């Protein structure tokens, strides 16, 4: 039992170490920034396209949910002026960035790991090396950049949709006026709340990108290995998101 725990800890440190090393390679490839433009554009397109529908839907429901939880409470105390406060604050700072990041991790992160691990298993990465093309510079860096950019953009869009969802739920299920909601948003939510969430999504994007690419390129064993790599990637991304959220919340208040 102790041996198993020890082995698990060693495995974890090895993985974390590997991700950090990969991160270092990615950063080094960015200075000077010689990135394959076509790969970058292709990935931006692919990742954005794939995730907009699911993120929008999730954000809508999440905003509505927040409203369902906080709205009745606010109504009971007659403080409808604060109606948007609870939902809006939670959405911008926490629920929005986290849920969108988790969905992004599942949709884009997992897909990316699947693609990269398939390429590794079919020797396409070795093929690149044999052509004297660095797979990190060519494949990984554009994907990391695309994922971070996309997640930040999606969080911004998602925040807006979530607030909309909250407003719609407030109107149709809690009989709170559109204007009341709008005013409560405007009066109680500060730009810093929004930026706080966006800064988090930047960090989340980095975490999702690095875990996704790491497990993609270190895969071993055919079809079974690919499944395991995707599994490991989404789990690692989820833990990183929670951990980073914790750290960032405490650091930036």
């Amino acid at each position, binding site marked *: 039992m102790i041996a198993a725990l020890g082995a698990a800890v060693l495995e974890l440190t090895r993985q974390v170490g590997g991700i950090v090393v990969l991160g270092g390679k990615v950063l080094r490839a960015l200075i000077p920034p010689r990135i394959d433009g076509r790969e970058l554009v292709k990935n931006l397109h692919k990742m954005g396209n794939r995730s907009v529908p699911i993120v929008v839907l999730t954000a809508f429901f999440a905003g509505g949910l927040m409203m369902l939880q906080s709205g009745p*409470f606010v109504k009971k105390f007659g403080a409808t002026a604060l109606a948007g406060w609870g939902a809006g604050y939670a959405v911008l700072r*926490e629920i929005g960035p986290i849920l969108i990041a988790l969905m992004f991790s*599942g949709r884009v992160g*997992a897909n990316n790991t699947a693609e990269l691990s*398939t390429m590794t298993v079919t020797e396409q990465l070795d093929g690149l090396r044999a052509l004297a093309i660095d797979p990190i510079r060519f494949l990984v860096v554009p994907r990391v950049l695309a994922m971070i950019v996309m997640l930040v953009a999606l969080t911004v869009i998602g925040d807006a949709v979530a607030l909309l969802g909250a407003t719609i739920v407030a109107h149709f*299920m809690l009989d709170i006026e559109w204007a009341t909601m709008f005013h409560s948003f405007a009066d109680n939510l500060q730009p810093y709340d929004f930026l706080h969430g966006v800064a988090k999504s930047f960090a989340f994007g980095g975490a999702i990108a690095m875990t996704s690419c790491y497990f993609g390129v270190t895969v071993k064993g055919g079809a079974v290995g690919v*499944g395991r790599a*995707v599994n490991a990637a989404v789990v690692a991304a989820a833990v990183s998101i*929670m951990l980073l959220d914790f750290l960032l919340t405490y650091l930036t208040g």
Partner: protein
Amino acid sequence: MTFITDIGTSVVGAYRAAIELWLVFIGTLAGLIRGRKTRPKGEILRQMFYIGNRSLAFIVVTLGFIGMVITYQACLQLARITGDFSQVGSQYMRLVVSDFGPTLAGMMLATRVGAGIAAEIGSMKVTEQIDALRMSGVAPIDYLIVPRFVAALVMGLFLTIVGSAVMFGLGGLTARYSFGVNLHAFFDPSFVRPRHLAIFLVKALSYGGTIPIVAGFCGLRARGSSEGVGWATTAAVIGGSFAVIVLDFIISASALFLTGGDL
């Protein structure tokens, strides 16, 4: 014009997939009722152990962290607006029980357990082991999905309870150490009604049941080789997470409706 056909095709595709998913669900329930004929002995227990073992640390860590963050943010905002912390604990407990606990646990389980099940079953599909099962007269749903369904229901509930407790507990510690909130005042269950516990149960069981069905369904649909397994795992995570959110919304809205707008 092709745009319309594209939408049409995806709607038809989604409709077909939904029907198949429903059939898998019915098949699972039927297999459950029919009893153990082709299932290996002790498979359910094995699956329960497997799920519990792999996910406990994950659930505790993720829910713990987010519990601390939520409490911190809430206290921060209260300090900004009212400065009154007397209700923080009781309201937080209500939220954890009726929403955050089960839903966040559900999403984490969709990731951990859903991906695991889809990866396993998906690998079996592309290496033709599923076909081999069928040839031996064994229904894959009965053999593979039913045990995981039961295991996920039971372990899901257990993990949700543990995770929610950790979430609440660590939240309390955060309130105490960052904002000086009295722990005794925090651990105040006065706002938690029986209906909240009922909601907790309904949500936890719904998620626990839906995740393995969605994941098994995605796994059985895997095609090709390694890419197929990758897509199946991805679909399971997304499908499971999204199902959790939608179910959460439906159950919360229904509860609100049934109690006449009272929380």
